């Protein structure tokens, strides 16, 4: 129950932040990505502001085992920089550059009843499942390859 309340508040604050910063608008994000055009550096200020608050919060979280709702704090394990990370970032960046939309703004724009957002989110969902299927396929094949 408490965990749900924090999740709701985090969703609201995230969405309001995306609105106020202008990042809900693909046109604003594309203005940042267009460095050789009429460049709009706003997105850098969004990241700066967000990191200024989140950095001390994560420093605090690292020293605690449980969150305020009693659930464990789950921080990703330290892993090396590998090919899936790099390749995934290239694929992600290509879609982001084509549309000016990433997952947070895509979801928040559903709240504007935008047809563009609906198309994007449906396709993004297919992309998530496609990755899951590919991963399951690779995992299923690996033992066979080792046997051979």
């Amino acid at each position, binding site marked *: 129950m408490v965990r749900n309340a924090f999740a709701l508040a985090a969703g609201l604050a995230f969405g309001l932040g995306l609105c106020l*910063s*202008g990042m809900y608008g693909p*046109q604003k994000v594309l203005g940042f990505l267009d460095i050789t055009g009429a460049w709009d550096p706003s997105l850098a200020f969004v990241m700066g502001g967000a990191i200024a608050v989140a950095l001390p919060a994560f420093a605090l979280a690292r020293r605690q085992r449980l969150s305020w709702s009693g659930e464990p704090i789950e921080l990703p394990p330290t892993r090396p920089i590998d090919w899936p*990370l790099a390749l995934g970032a290239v694929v992600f960046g*290509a879609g982001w*550059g084509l*549309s000016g939309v990433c997952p947070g703004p895509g979801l928040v724009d559903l*709240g504007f009843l935008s047809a563009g957002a609906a198309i994007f989110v449906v396709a993004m969902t297919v992309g998530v499942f496609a990755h899951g299927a590919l991963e399951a396929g690779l995992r299923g094949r690996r033992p066979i390859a080792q046997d051979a």
Partner: protein
Amino acid sequence: MTLDLVHFTPVASLSGGLLIGGAAALLILGSGRILGAAGLYAGLVLAPAQMWRWFWLAGLVAAPLLARLIWTIPAPLFPGSPITLLVAGLLVGFGARLGSGCTSGHGVCGLSRLSPRSLAATSIFMATGFLVVFAVRHLVS
């Protein structure tokens, strides 16, 4: 105040960033989870029984309704054809999963955790985004 999607908006964007950072702080300290939109959404569609993810999504989608009461807020403008959006959505969904994160997961939370992986991912997807926008806006059209 009318939100400006055309010009450089340092104050509004920095303030919005502080809110996004606050959201990340609330979720990690309150619920113990990383505020990565792609990861949270993927968890929701792959394991729909986890109620807290639905609460997060409800807050996110309700935010524009609340924002309309506070600011005059222009509609988001999606560029290109529906086909472009379809391809972009596929790439973003697949790429965020393969690369373990998106703009919020790597770019906000990962950089705040001082994660070298997130710094690498953020640099790569930003560079790719710059290149694709350069190609689409200045080479093709």
